């Protein structure tokens, strides 16, 4: 019966178009209803595939320069007595562009985190969440050799309460990186490591950041030219503890 209420709202939920109260109601329903949870995951995967496939066409540099010249020329005053309104228009346009630029970077950061959250959720639902299964960091780290254009260090976890489950290669905007899966208690933590490219750096200007995506707690930091993301539904303290160990290992 509750399926009849919630199932037609799945697209609205995945498009973030429900009220906060309904979003919580749907969260609770999906935890209990495996049929709707599977349907939601399936739709989410198609939505994600559409987003990636839709980012298809890029303008040429020559065309970009042509439009920049066009905008600059149009912004220039044509008649002396018109300079005040034209200048005002240019200022407002500039302000709009700056605002949109900031929104764009924030939106880009949200998009990156949402993409990683999707991978985290999809992997946990998978029968084979990792490709190299080992709790030994000396087995997991060498497995990535030749698969990634960088290397990284993993911490010793003896006596810390954390357990390395394994790893796999993940892709963020078509760039390969490492995804490591850890256990703490009954919770899973996904740690993603990618090269810290300029577009990622611009999206996370503060260096370190924490936040929430789809109810997951997220930690992100950069060190040694690498960008780390940790995702989990574990407590923020548990995630911070693992992040501390990873930072010490990567320092």
């Amino acid at each position, binding site marked *: 019966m509750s399926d009849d209420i919630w199932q037609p709202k799945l697209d609205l939920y995945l498009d973030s178009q429900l009220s906060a109260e309904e979003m919580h109601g749907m969260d609770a329903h999906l935890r209990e209803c495996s049929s709707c949870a599977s*349907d939601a995951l399936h739709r989410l995967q198609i939505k994600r*595939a559409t987003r990636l496939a839709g980012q298809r*066409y890029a303008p040429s540099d020559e065309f970009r320069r042509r439009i920049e010249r066009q905008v600059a020329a149009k912004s220039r005053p044509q008649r002396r007595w018109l300079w005040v309104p034209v200048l005002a228009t240019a200022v407002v346009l500039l302000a709009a562009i700056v605002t949109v630029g900031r929104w764009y970077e924030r939106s880009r950061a949200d998009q990156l985190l949402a993409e990683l959250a999707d991978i985290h959720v999809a992997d946990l639902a998978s029968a084979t969440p990792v490709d190299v299964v080992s709790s030994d960091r000396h087995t997991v780290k060498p497995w990535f050799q030749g698969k990634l254009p960088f290397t990284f260090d993993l911490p010793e976890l003896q006596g810390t309460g954390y357990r390395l489950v394994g790893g796999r290669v993940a892709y963020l905007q078509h760039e390969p990186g490492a995804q490591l899966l850890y256990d703490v208690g009954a919770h899973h933590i996904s740690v993603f490591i990618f090269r810290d490219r300029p577009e990622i750096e611009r999206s996370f200007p503060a260096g370190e950041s924490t936040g929430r995506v789809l109810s997951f707690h997220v930690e992100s930091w950069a060190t040694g030219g690498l960008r780390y993301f940790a995702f989990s539904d574990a407590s923020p303290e548990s995630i911070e503890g693992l992040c501390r160990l990873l930072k010490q290992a990567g320092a």
Partner: protein
Amino acid sequence: MPLFDSLYNFAHWLSQDRDEAEDLVQETYAKALKGFGSFQPGTNFRAWIFRILRNTFLTSRTGLAATRTVPLESDGDEQQEVAVSRETPESILLVQAGRQQVQAALEQVPVIFREVLLLCDVEEMSYQEIADTLALPIGTVMSRLHRARRSLRTALEGKAREAKHV
């Protein structure tokens, strides 16, 4: 020009032609600069400039042809239909479809539905923003989105079936 890449991508998806996409974007910026007085500060700049581009497309030869060939009579009727998409072997295959297959399937979606899918899933606009951009009621946006997803799913399932038989 932060929206430049997004506008170009959207224009190219609408027109399916590089030269036409460049003309659309160029005309959009020209109209935006000329008519900036009509933009009301505090309203959505992104929806405003995307609306200019979309209206420019609709008056182009490709746009006129595209909108003439799509039946719109059932706009608004789709909310009655429940969008069921339980997992089937084909639906699992389509999730595993590569990027190129999804792009090929998107090309098959009629432009009037493709635009709403792109604004929602690629530009991540809210339904209200899409309604503002396309000058449509929100109910129609939801209806078209539903039909767009159904159309994409059908195209992807067809491709999955083809792949299975090869």
